[in-house]
C-alpha cells in the first residue's frame, strides 16, 4: 500500500457507471416523449398480477420478521472478524485459532440461547 495512492484504477468503473445511468435515463426520456398518453381507471390501478388489488399495499409485517432480522444482523456482522483471521491465519498460528474458537463459542452460546428460547421457531 502506498501513501500517494491515486484511484485511477476506478476510472473504467466510473465511466461504465456514468454510461449506464445515461442509457437508463435516455430510455425513460425517449419513452416519455414518444408514447401516447391515454389514461383510464384500470390502467392507473396498481398492477397486481393482472388481478384487482386486494387490501392495503402498506402491509404490516409480523414482529417475527424483526426478530429474525435482528439475529441475522448480529451474527452476520460478527463474521467480519473471520475475514482478517482467515487472511492472516498462517501467521497467527495456534494462538489465533484458539482466540477465534473462543469467539465462535461465545457466539454459539448466544445462538443456543436464542434457539432454546424459541426465537427461531416460526409460530
Amino acid at each position, binding site marked *: 500500500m502506498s501513501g500517494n*495512492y491515486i484511484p485511477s484504477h476506478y476510472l473504467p468503473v466510473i465511466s461504465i457507471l456514468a454510461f449506464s445511468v445515461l442509457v437508463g435515463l435516455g430510455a425513460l426520456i425517449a419513452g416519455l416523449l414518444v408514447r401516447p398518453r391515454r389514461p383510464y381507471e384500470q390502467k392507473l390501478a396498481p398492477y397486481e398480477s393482472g388481478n384487482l388489488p386486494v387490501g392495503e399495499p402498506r402491509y404490516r409485517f409480523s414482529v417475527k420478521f424483526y426478530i429474525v432480522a*435482528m439475529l441475522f444482523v*448480529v451474527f452476520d456482522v460478527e463474521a467480519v472478524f473471520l475475514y482478517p483471521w482467515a487472511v492472516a491465519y498462517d501467521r497467527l498460528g495456534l494462538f489465533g485459532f484458539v482466540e477465534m474458537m473462543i469467539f465462535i463459542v461465545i457466539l454459539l452460546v448466544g445462538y443456543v440461547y436464542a434457539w432454546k428460547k424459541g426465537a427461531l421457531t416460526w409460530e
Partner: protein
Amino acid sequence: MVPLSWYIVLSAVLFSIGVFGFLVRRNLIMIFLSMELMLNSVNISFVAFSHYLQSMTGQVMVFFVITVAAAEAAIGLAILIVFYKNNPTLNSDEINLLKG
C-alpha cells in the same frame, strides 16, 4: 490525490448532520439512523487517518466500530419493538411518562 483534509471535512460534516438529525428529528427510527450516520462518519475519518498515517490501527478500529454498531442496532431495535408493543407510537414527543 485527495488531500486528507477533504476526508476529515466530510467526516465532520456527516457527524454534524448526524448530531443535528439526532437533536431535531422526532421519529425514533430517524433518530436511530442519525446515530448510525454519526458512527459511520467517524469510520470515514478512521480509515482516512489510517491511510495517511500508514498505520493499520485505524482500520482495525473500524472493524470493531462496525460490529459494535451492529450489536447496538440489534439492541436498539429490540428496545424499540418492545416499546412499540406497549404504546404504538414512534414519536419521541410522546415518550413522556417520566419527567419532573
